[in-house]
């Protein structure tokens, strides 16, 4: 339950010569939620992308579970793709050396959509979704991979109250099952009332 799911030691991430993350260390255990806050440009998303393995560390060490699911920020291009919700959620079950979907994968996708209350959107095209619905689709995709660690980059941005409640309901359930969560947020209200949580504030690439 409390086994470490991610350990970051003195991580440095650079864009060219520019140091964006400077000596950040972090240890996250199962059942624990870490909120990463900070001003725009402080390095929150870069740190998250580094932990997701999308940016190389210039120095330091990252150790984490392989069962990690990443929920990126939404971009305009995410809607301009010929696919329905179910197809996108199913991609969350893909892993190394696994080319075809099984019946179990389909069941997991259906369960994830049910948990996020988007099962009625399963056949809808992406371009018809609102921002809040698309965020729930991305979270359902992440849950499909049965993660031990969830990395969420501003999942609450633009969410209505209903979607916000659904999202935190699902997160609390995952936490109780031993999943670790790291979540970038701008909104202080996200931090209230969540058990086993820590807040770290980033400024100029360092933890304050």
């Amino acid at each position, binding site marked *: 339950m409390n086994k470490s799911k991610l350990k970051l030691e003195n991580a440095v991430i650079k864009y060219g010569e520019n140091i964006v993350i400077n000596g950040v260390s972090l240890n996250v255990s199962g059942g624990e939620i870490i909120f990463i806050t900070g001003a725009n440009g402080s390095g929150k998303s870069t740190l998250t992308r580094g932990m997701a393995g999308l940016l190389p560390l210039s120095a330091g060490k990252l150790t984490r579970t392989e069962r990690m699911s990443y929920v*990126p920020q939404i971009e305009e291009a995410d809607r301009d*793709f*010929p696919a329905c919700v179910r197809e996108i959620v199913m991609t969350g079950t893909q892993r*190394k050396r696994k080319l075809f979907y099984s019946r179990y994968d389909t069941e997991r996708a259906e369960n994830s959509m049910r948990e996020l209350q988007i099962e009625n959107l399963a056949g809808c095209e992406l371009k018809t979704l609102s921002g809040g619905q698309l965020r729930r689709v991305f979270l359902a995709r992440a849950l499909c991979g049965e993660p031990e660690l969830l990395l969420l980059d501003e999942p609450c941005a633009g969410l209505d109250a209903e979607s916000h409640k659904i999202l935190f309901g699902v997160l609390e359930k995952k936490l109780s099952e031993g999943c670790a969560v790291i979540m970038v947020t701008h909104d202080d209200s996200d931090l209230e009332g969540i058990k086993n949580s820590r807040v770290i504030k980033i400024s100029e690439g360092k933890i304050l």
Partner: protein
Amino acid sequence: MSEILEILSYPFVIRALVAGSLISVCASVLGVILVLKHYSLIGHGLSEIGFASLSAASALNLSALAVSTPSVIAASFVIMFVSQKYKTAGDIAIAVASSAALAFGIIISSITGSVSNTGAYLFGSVLAVSQSDLIFSVALSFAVMLIFIIFYNRIFLITYNEDYARSLGINTAFYQFVISVLTALVVVSGMRITGTLLISGVIILPAVTAKNFASRFKTLIIISGVISFVAFTAGLIVSFIFNIPAGAGVILSNTAILIAAKILKFIKN
């Protein structure tokens, strides 16, 4: 009708029709990925690099395919890598590489006195389709089809969001390499029929047209392939009837289908 039947009685026409339509269908299928990933200009860049390598091969008296195939594959990989890593720099890289390659090709042709070949390279020729080209096009189509069937889920994921695929631990560079090689092979084999100036249209236009009708990735691939086949066949037959270059006929028929699709969509909406 009798005119069409007479045209189809020539073996070289049948060769051009079979090889060309197979290559154009492959091109259109790959074009779906390139259009969705906003790499539409890659085909244009590669074809002009192909022109430079054909000119160099002619000047050095070497086999055209032996020189152009590795050159275009290498260029394809570099352009895709730069496009992915530096986003906007990708367009700049294509513009620089294609204009420099075109200039290089023209200078080589001019110095070696092989300017007469330049027209054939730029505008293509159906007479250039040999028996070995036919075999190559069948093998290439088979390879593209097999790769799309086996790796469909991966291709779907990587085309939608490469970052997300990488976060799942998937080796996206491998798939990018495969797509680069296939695109380069399509360009090298197709540019001798349609010409280096027009092959990028064969890659991109069917996918752009199909986007007007398809709401799923799989449907987009199928519609794009069908449009490409119809446009190539119609373009080739029209080019024989009106004695115009085949490449131009194919591109014009693709453009006509695109305009018709836009009008249909406009009326429907």
